[in-house]
């Protein structure tokens, strides 16, 4: 009974949200109702891999473009953020040096980084990657740093009494002890990367879910905006769950 309720309650929540959406569509003439949204969008959902034009593509195809871009930007951010996090974690000196800088750069919006990326790289694709990497690497840096600092004295003692070399200490103690924290960082970073992708696609007009959203807005096909929004939300949710799953696995080790 309780399990049934646990399954049903989220559905009730979704139902209520649809009701509010439907109600809003009655008062705002430009907002398509849930039913109309589905009717106008089903081509994209039912033929998810179709390619009819540069931006007029099936939703899975668009999502794929976005995911690839996010993946690249996220990996770039993680590749920079992880070693920086380790360095800051072991060196209080470096932390002192860079902490204020980090605190200032962290809250900068992706929309602010993107034009700078365009200035630096003169092309939209690398500029998008730049924005994603710069925005998404902070949680990785901060969590990795915290993870290194949280290593119990016991483990450092092991390294000292066994006289482990620096490399061995790093590989066999620091990295495994920090791994759960690193993955918390990765999960948060991926979430941010996914937020940034939409903004950067909208600004640069590259094909993807965000680019599609912006183009359909300009073409006055409002149902597709809702389709894109839902897609973004669902994919973001799935990404978070996948990373959360990996994180949970690591915590139990």
């Amino acid at each position, binding site marked *: 009974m309780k399990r049934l309720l646990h399954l049903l309650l989220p559905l009730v929540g979704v139902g209520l949200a649809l009701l509010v959406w439907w109600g809003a569509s009655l008062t705002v003439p430009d907002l398509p109702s849930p039913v109309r949204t589905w009717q106008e969008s089903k081509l994209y959902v039912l033929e998810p891999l179709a390619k009819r034009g540069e931006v007029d593509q099936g939703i899975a195809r668009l999502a794929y473009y976005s995911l690839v871009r996010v993946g690249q930007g996220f990996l770039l951010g993680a590749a920079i953020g992880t070693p920086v996090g380790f360095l800051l974690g072991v060196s209080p000196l470096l932390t002192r040096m860079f902490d204020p800088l980090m605190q200032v750069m962290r809250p900068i919006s992706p929309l602010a980084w993107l034009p700078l990326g365009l200035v630096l790289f003169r092309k939209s694709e690398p500029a998008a990657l730049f924005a994603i990497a710069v925005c998404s690497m902070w949680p990785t840096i901060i969590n990795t740093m915290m993870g290194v600092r949280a290593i119990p004295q*016991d*483990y450092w*003692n*092991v390294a*000292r*009494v*066994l*006289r*482990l*070399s620096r490399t*061995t200490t790093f590989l*066999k*103690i620091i990295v*495994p*002890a920090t791994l759960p924290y690193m993955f918390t960082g990765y999960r948060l970073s991926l979430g941010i990367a996914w937020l940034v992708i939409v903004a950067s696609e909208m600004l640069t007009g590259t094909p993807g879910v965000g680019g599609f959203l912006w183009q359909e807005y300009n073409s006055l096909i409002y149902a597709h905006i809702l389709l894109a929004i839902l897609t973004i939300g669902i994919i973001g949710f799935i990404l978070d769950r996948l990373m959360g799953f990996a994180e949970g696995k690591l915590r139990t*080790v």
Partner: protein
Amino acid sequence: MPFIEAAGIAKSFPAGAGVRPVLRGVSLSVERGEFVSIVGAMGSGKSTLLSILAGLTPADEGTMTVDGEPVTGVRTNAAFVFQNYSLLPWFTALENVRLAVEASCPALSRQEQKARAKETLEQVGLGNALNRRPRQLSGGMRQRVAIARAFATDPDLLFMDEPFGALDALTRETLQGELMRLCSSVSQPVTTIMITNSVEEALLLSDRIVPILPGPPATLGAPITVDLPRGRDVALLAHDEQASHVRAHVVATLTAALGNRRPKTTPGVVFTDKEKTKPGLVFP
């Protein structure tokens, strides 16, 4: 010449604006192959003393040599057993021990390191738990792994910080027995310094007992020789005259230092400042 020679060791830690002296005028000499226990209440600076002797913490004052050489850091051929096991949770029992073998004998192949680790774990009765991780092992088994890790590197010097402090009485007794067996079975004589708060444990295992007199700063009392053959038995110790004599002496020294509290000399006296109540007399 004694194997370990420490003279005039002093140590303080910063506390607020000033410093808190922890140890003062600590001198100790230990012969090769000797088993010395340092007994005292928790918080008296025992662990600090051990980590200074082990080269983990530098002393503020004093001189210290091991085997004629001044101590500058952790010595090769020294091994450690800590109260809280200090095993790496992401490695299996075998890997935990193998890592120690790898660090001390990098010339061995991985297979040889594994074989050595396996052999030592079998010696402490963990042959069937090689591939289990620490969290899948009981406290006693974890400490067996830690003891195996210490002995796997064939040490000539062993430091133990309350090695059985976290274990229940029964497990503690079994492990004390195992330790005695291991100490007598190794190829070279192992010089051991053990920290403990149990007079009974010190009586069972050591050649000499050194009471630590709480300060601050703490100092060492005169060593008391336990003139009984090794391989002692808890039950026999309870009635042995020499043992009773040593026990009474140690307890009297410690209690006198604790501030003229009148001791009742009961077997199994435990000095503790935590509420880990064990049978016997407890000094709060």
